[in-house]
């Protein structure tokens, strides 16, 4: 039981991730598709498998269906067998009727029975929200070598970004000596990646101390740093929090640039190809006589007759003759009909862009979304699941269209920059 591979993993996958706008309208953030074939959680989960860890609890809360479906039995990540397993841990009613998780630490506290049922020397706590490649086995060994109570994975980020993260200061032995959660003024450039290795007994003790302490970064960490042995585990590779539309788009584009360091196949990132419940396997992508491609990622099952530039296409995307797709991310089963244009846009699953429609039109990149100015302000459009964009329709910049909006409910004169369209035809 002292082998590092017995380390129990708790994967926090309950976050709403609301800044991902309508991509999280019907699914939790970890279940958002990424890079054509993957979902965001595949990165954390594959790191677990590739680190030879065997027992995982996935803590869910917000719209967990898509996520549960994707995890399936855990077989894709080799997490089935007598000593292996992945368990979904949803919130449960306790003494009161409604006991939703109030924060990261609270979520773990409510699953102490799971920790107790799976004895291990350490507990690894991860978030299912990040794109990275990391060997947790090495981190646990580091934690042991430092004789730490708690080890936090940390990396250097630009000072201008530090306000998104837990920020720490370390001494020459990597002991964390100062901590500030989401600081307004940058005093350090060392950010927490939200990856913690706890000594199990220490974790149980910390959680039982004060039930009002519901968040690791806000409550448990500052206390631990003050009173116990907390070390930083330095990380130097590719790591992105894809919590905003802009960051999500950028990380996808990094796939097209081999120098970015984002290499899912080389990292052995595994996904569950069976979770889409297709009866048949995707055939190879079919490229027509007139296909034109430039720096793009194309998945099996695509049919390309038109032009695709600087874009990521998930399985089953169809780009018809004369159609153009540029700087965009198209999820599974999207169709771009003849002479249509998709520019700087993210299309959720099964979006139909009818002939001659333009999604991403004009120069209004700086006109922020009126309903969500903090989500959409760099020019990117987001079109929800199963939307049909009618023939000839023009959609400007920073627009969003809610999932399942029928073609009939689009305004006749198109969507201007910064507009949001709801399924009933309301434009805001």
């Amino acid at each position, binding site marked *: 039981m002292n082998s590092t591979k017995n380390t129990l993993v708790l994967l926090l996958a309950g976050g709403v991730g609301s800044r991902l706008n309508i991509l999280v309208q019907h699914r939790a953030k970890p279940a958002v598709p990424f890079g054509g074939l993957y979902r965001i959680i595949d990165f954390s989960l594959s790191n677990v498998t590739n680190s030879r860890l065997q027992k995982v609890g996935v803590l869910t809360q917000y719209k967990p269906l898509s996520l549960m479906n994707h995890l399936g039995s855990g077989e894709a990540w080799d997490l089935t067998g007598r000593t292996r397993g992945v368990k979904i841990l949803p919130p449960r009613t306790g003494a009161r009727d409604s006991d939703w998780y109030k924060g990261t630490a609270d979520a773990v506290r409510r699953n102490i029975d799971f920790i107790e049922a799976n004895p291990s020397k350490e507990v690894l706590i991860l978030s299912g929200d990040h794109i990275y490649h990391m060997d947790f086995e090495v981190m646990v060994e580091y934690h042991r070598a430092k004789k730490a109570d708690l080890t936090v994975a940390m990396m250097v980020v630009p000072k201008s970004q530090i306000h998104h993260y837990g920020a720490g200061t370390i001494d020459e032995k990597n002991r964390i000596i100062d901590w500030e959660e989401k600081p307004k003024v940058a005093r350090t450039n060392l950010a927490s990646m939200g990856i913690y290795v706890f000594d199990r007994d220490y974790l149980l003790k910390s959680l039982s101390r004060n039930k009002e302490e519901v968040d690791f970064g806000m409550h448990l960490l500052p206390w631990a740093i003050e009173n116990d042995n907390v070390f930083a585990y330095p990380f130097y590779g590719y790591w992105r929090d894809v919590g905003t539309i802009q960051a999500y788009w950028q990380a996808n584009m990094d796939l097209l640039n081999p120098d970015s360091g984002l290499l899912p196949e080389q990292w052995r990132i595994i996904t569950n190809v069976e979770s889409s419940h297709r009866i048949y396997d995707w055939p190879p992508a079919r*490229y027509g006589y007139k296909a034109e491609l*430039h720096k793009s990622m194309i998945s099996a099952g695509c049919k390309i007759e038109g032009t695709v530039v600087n874009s990521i296409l998930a399985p089953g995307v169809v780009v018809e003759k004369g159609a153009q797709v540029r700087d965009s991310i198209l999820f599974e089963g999207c169709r771009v009909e003849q002479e249509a244009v998709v520019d700087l846009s993210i299309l959720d699953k099964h979006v139909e862009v009818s002939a001659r429609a333009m999604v991403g039109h004009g120069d209004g990149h700086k006109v922020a979304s009126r309903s969500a100015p903090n989500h959409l302000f760099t020019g990117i459009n987001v079109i929800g699941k199963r939307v049909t964009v009618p023939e000839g329709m023009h959609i400007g910049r920073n627009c969003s269209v809610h999932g399942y909006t029928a073609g009939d409910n689009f305004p006749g004169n198109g969507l201007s920059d910064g507009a949001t369209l709801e399924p009933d035809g309301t434009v805001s």
Partner: protein
Amino acid sequence: MLKTTTLAMILAGGRVDELDVLTYGRPKSALPFGGVGRVIDFPLSNLMNSGIEQVAILSQYHSYSLINHIGTGAAWDMLGRNRGISILPPYIGSTVKEWYRGSADAVHKNLDFVQFHDPEYILILSGDHIYHMDYDDMITYHAQRDADLTMAFIRIEPSEAYRFGVANISDEDGPRGGRVLDYWEKPREQQADWASLTVYCFKPEVLYRMLALNQQQESFEFGRDIIPVMMNAGLKVYGYKFCGYWGYTRTVDEYWQSNMDLLGDKPLIDIDNWGFRTNLDQRGIRDFQPTIVGDYGTVSNSLIYNGCRIEGTVRNSVLFPGVEIGRNTLVEDSVLFFNNVVGHNCTLKKVVADVNNFYGDHVRIGEGGAAGKVTVVGWNNDVPDQTTVGAGATIWPELTESSWKKQVAAGEVLR
């Protein structure tokens, strides 16, 4: 256990000499096809789509590649309490001492397996062909006619008749089929233009009787030995007329052509709609990332699965996962199996390349010579920079560095 209605037996052991280096280490049924799968995926997908859930695969030549590909059978939903794929290799016993001596002998040696299932219909088919067929419809016809044997036939060019078992079929049921009136196995002179697909549906007790009878002979093939005996005995042999695509693919040229039939605006092989499945665990197919077409990549009229990197030009070709095409390289009219890595400034024309080959820079394959000849590269080769290989040449698998030369002539066999 639910009783098995139809038991399918796939004859998948054959090497097929004409395919030469492509069947160097695998039976023909395990030959890659269609940019992701293997030939045997076609009959297996057909079985799945026909609702047949008990399958035996009779395998003898270099079985590992096939065993590995079949896995548990879960890829075709053939894993469950009443569903399964069993691979039946040759064995020795107190009375059995030899290899499978032919297709009929292979089935005969596994009659204990067949009789354990005690099926109502026994479907025997080859694992070597590319086609899309509803076996259930053929079995229904077999049952309606209460036939002893129903065989599937396809119309062929009469000049090709010498390669097949051919028959005259009565017009009893019009386009559906009819009684087999005459049957010739690979006739020297053209006799008829209905060729057997080697898809047989037997009434079990007739099959048992025929196999027992056949054991006293010297030759043990269904086409050559069993069917003529049944015809002579006046048993009820019916022909089921099939009119779709059928890829026989017994020569390198035919194999190449079948691959080309996947391409074009209206492909003859409509793999997108054939309900095709393969085993995605095999060769880690499921773990490849999407294909990247780079800054200088151009692709037209081609099929490319996940896991490729294209920096050059690909035309009229089929690329399996893990293929990389370097800058300024042209790949045309070619089929590149898994993990062919081609360097810069190369030209590959009308090449069929087996798995795991590396090509240096300025390599030219399929140049000059007799135009239209397919050049074949066997597996695990490291083709040195500047090498030229003429059209129609054959490169043996796993050549050592010293076996290579700068110029391989058209039609030459390098080994």
